[in-house]
């Protein structure tokens, strides 16, 4: 699952199937009430895609991302990531799989408040047991990538929303994942900051071939996504691949 080397053309690194969702359903049970969040959704995402999953609130975007990341388990159907069935993995295997192959960007940044920028970014590498020297160089590289090199010792509460989200991107990037799952990453940002971040993520996608899968309401992300999957009432309403 090593990402391909950087390339100038997006088409050049869209390759093998990375995510395969087969008739996945997820129903939540509250008391005696069953609430279907996702119904028989099938979807394939290839390595290197820059895909947005859009839809109104309650359409199942978050549920779909939860299932793909293994944070939740489908009631029916199956999810495969790089050929491995997610539901076959144990809790520890899933943790290791997410740690080594996935990056996460959340709506409210969700940095660890007691750690500095550097410590937040290097946290996953600490879990991976990466040696200190390599950690330092990769943190520096990741912070340069998101243009935050000068504020590495600050704590999250000393950063603006945009800066925090850039740290979150650096944290997601630093473990060199194949797939970054981003949940409404621009929802709490002003449009200029949000636009700059989406450009940054597109650049990472283009240069490093990292697959991005967004859940979003944001028109700006929808417009810039190379593929837009629209969900409605837990089902895929539309799946559109854009030509640039």
């Amino acid at each position, binding site marked *: 699952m090593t990402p391909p080397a950087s390339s100038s053309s997006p088409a050049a690194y869209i390759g093998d199937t990375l995510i395969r969702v087969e008739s996945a359903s997820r129903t939540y049970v509250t008391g005696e009430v069953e609430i279907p969040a996702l119904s028989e959704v099938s979807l394939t995402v290839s390595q290197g895609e820059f895909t947005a999953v859009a839809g109104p609130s309650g359409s199942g975007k*978050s549920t779909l991302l939860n299932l793909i*990341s293994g*944070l939740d388990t489908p009631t029916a159907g199956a999810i495969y990531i790089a050929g491995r069935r997610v539901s076959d993995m144990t809790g520890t295997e899933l*943790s290791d799989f997410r*740690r080594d192959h996935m990056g*996460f960007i959340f709506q409210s940044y*969700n940095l660890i408040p007691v750690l500095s920028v550097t410590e937040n970014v290097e946290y996953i590498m600490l*879990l991976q047991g990466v040696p200190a020297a390599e950690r330092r160089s990769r943190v520096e590289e990741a912070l340069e990538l998101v243009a935050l090199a000068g504020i590495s010792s600050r704590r999250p509460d000393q950063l603006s929303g945009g800066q925090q989200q850039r740290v979150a991107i650096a*944290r997601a990037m630093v473990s060199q994942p194949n797939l970054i799952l981003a949940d409404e990453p621009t929802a709490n940002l002003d449009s200029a900051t949000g636009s700059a971040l989406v450009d940054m993520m597109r650049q990472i996608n283009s240069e490093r071939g990292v697959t991005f899968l967004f859940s979003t309401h944001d028109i700006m992300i929808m417009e810039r996504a190379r593929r837009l999957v629209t969900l409605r009432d837990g089902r895929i309403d539309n799946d559109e691949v854009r030509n640039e």
Partner: protein
Amino acid sequence: MYLVRLAWRNLLRNLRRTLLAGLAVGIGLAGLLFTDALFVGLQENMIRTATETFLGQGQIHRQGFRSHLEVELALSDGAELMARLDTDNRVRAAAPRTQFFAMISSPANVAATSVFGIDPDREHEVSLIHEAVEQGDASLPSGGVLIGHELAELLEVELGDRLIVTATTTGAGELTQEMVRVSGIFRFGARSLDDGVAFVPLEFSRKLLELSSSDLHEIAIQFRDLGIAGDRSHPFWRQYSGGDREVLGWRDLLPELDAMLELSQFSMFVVLLILFGVVALSVINTLFMSLHERTFEFGVLRAVGTRPRQLFLLIVLEAACLSLISIAIGSLFGLTSTALVAHTGIDYSGIDMAGVTITRLVHPVITVDQYVMFPAWVLGFALVASIYPATYAARMEPAQAMRRSL
């Protein structure tokens, strides 16, 4: 190491809550440290009062003497035993005694009395007879007798008055009588001594009872280390037992005091359990409050690849850090308060417990054990208590924890 750093910083995140929890556990620990120090001080005080007054920390008799008090049951190798004890480094002092029942009569009255034949010089090192004598002196000249102030009142005698001692000799069991003169009147403050005991010179008693010059009924011992006296498994007891000898420490000589101290230890154990219950609840409460505040954060940590067992370890480490803060607070408070009271002492004089009347100030005793064992227990209980919230955190479903987001 990064988990330790994270745990420590998580605790400092809500400093007020951490300090309050640390204070709750710390004050409990300080209370325990003080109570234990007071208990040790009281115990030492009672044992010393009981053993230094007259009894001795240990005694040697011939088998059966203590239960029958028959004058024939004497230690025939008394002189050899005394010589052996005199060269034993563990023994601070030893005093030879005879003991018998006698009728002591004065012109006014008569009293059944327990009479001890003693060597005043040696007794000075073992018992407090010399301090208790309030009239006359404790030197006990030949033909002299020391009696308690209550016995003196009963017999209506004063210093220098004559008394007749009537006892039974060994062997034929003939009655024998001797005249003695009151050379001292003592007041121990313990009724059993003040109204029922008399002391005569050792040689006088041997002649009266027709014992040989090396015969003894009892050897009272004071140790250099009080711990030997209370330790039934100490080799000392085996080394001096054997043959027809019986060697006993204060626990066997004063079973009621021993039982009372055992009961006190049980009370201490109950206090300990209550404190550790408080520790466990405080730790669980603090960790759960912290967990509920950070549910989403735990979801994020799991999402980015933190293993369940790493989250478990993080919570256990937070409990360990919290208990270390508590231990620091508790040890500081405990040491300060105990040291202050140990300096001034507490006056329980006059209080009678298990037949022992406290006569001196009670000083709490600080031991290294207290500051190793109790903090270790607090840490241990905190770690055990943290298993519940740690398991809760480790089993947290990331998706549920993050329901607000992904």
